[in-house]
């Protein structure tokens, strides 16, 4: 009977610690696309847009009043091309910013790094796949790890609709957010997929 008690308890503890659902496994499973718009805005009557050839970074230097930095062209160019492609597929015409466009698109990038600190005496409590003895291990010194997420934020502005304090009205916008991991090709594929999704979920832009 005693062995049954021990086996029951062991089985339950094993079940609850080893079989907990694991959640996301791949980087792209953490990618998000958010969009929002002003429902009172008449998108149908607008025909033209302007888009810069760079993506500005929102970083500490800019926030501190310094001059802006820009996303490297190897990353920025495919994203800007994808925005152009989607705007034109939706029936909009690209014009120069001097040609009185109906709307302006303002793309910016934000990077946030999150640091996880285990501190002294942190423990690794997971089973190492049966390869090593099931002791886990501990850290007698501080351990940190971190991950960075990046967001591409694109805002559509009406330059002919200014507020009393001369601010342009934002009428639509989207955010593509994900981990800044993987090769340039993988990163570009994930973020351009997100840009496509932003247009798919914004059918009111279509002509």
């Amino acid at each position, binding site marked *: *009977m005693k062995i*049954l*008690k021990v086996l*029951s*308890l062991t*089985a*339950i503890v094993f*079940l*609850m610690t080893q*079989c*907990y*659902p694991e*959640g*996301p496994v791949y980087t792209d*499973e*953490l*990618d*998000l*696309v*958010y*969009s*929002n*718009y*002003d*429902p009172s805005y008449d998108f149908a009557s607008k025909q033209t847009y302007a888009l810069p050839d760079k993506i500005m970074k929102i970083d500490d230097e800019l926030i501190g009043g310094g001059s802006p930095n820009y996303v490297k062209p190897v990353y920025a160019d495919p994203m800007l091309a994808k925005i152009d492609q989607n705007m034109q597929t939706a029936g909009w015409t690209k014009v120069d910013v001097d040609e009185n466009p109906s709307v302006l698109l303002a793309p910016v990038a934000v990077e946030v790094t*999150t640091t996880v600190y285990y501190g002294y005496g942190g423990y690794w409590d997971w089973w190492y796949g049966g390869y090593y003895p099931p002791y886990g291990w501990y850290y007698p010194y501080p351990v940190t790890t971190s*991950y960075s*997420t990046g967001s591409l934020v694109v805002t559509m502005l009406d330059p002919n609709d200014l507020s009393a304090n001369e601010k342009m009205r934002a009428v639509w916008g989207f955010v593509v*957010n*994900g*981990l800044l991991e993987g090769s340039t090709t993988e990163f570009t594929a994930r973020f351009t997929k997100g840009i496509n*999704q932003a247009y798919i*979920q*914004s059918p009111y832009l279509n002509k």
Partner: protein
Amino acid sequence: MKKTIIITLMLAAGVFIAPLVSAQSFTSLQYTMGIPTGGLKDHVDKISWRGFTFEYQREVAESVTVGCNFAWSTFYERKDYDSYTNNNATLTGVQYRYDNLFPMLINAHYTIGTGTVIPYVGLGAGTMYDLRNTDMGTWTIEENNWHFLMTPEAGFMFDVSPGTSIKLNAKYDYAFKIKDADAFGNLNISFGFVFNSW
């Protein structure tokens, strides 16, 4: 509600009086699966295969035991890449939903017969702690609530050796509606061992 409070108090009284009138006690350890209903099913539609139940019962009269019951069930569902719209805003991504349920209750059982296979019915009342997470990207929306709980139950015990039985039972946890959360249910199917006088 008044009736359920009275039942709860009676059951609680039984737990404390029990040691004075009988020596026979039963401890159960069981694997538990759960089938979500109501508001829980709206959040996680999948059956839970992760759970356990611990129960302690003491005989207070012939065929009647009272005791307490604690359990933990984890529900999980991965929603494929999809869009969720609220007014003008739309959010798209893969969603991971988790629900950890911790029912804690005082209950009574009535056993029918004395053979090798002993059926029983039971009723319990207590509280349910519900920890609910919806993860998207690197964010999580977390809700946690305490519900009043009622649990009808039925099952069988099979004697396998002196002092040990196998127990198979179904228990329906009904968590009542509260101000911040809807009512929901969880049909537990449990399988495990009962040890007499542990």
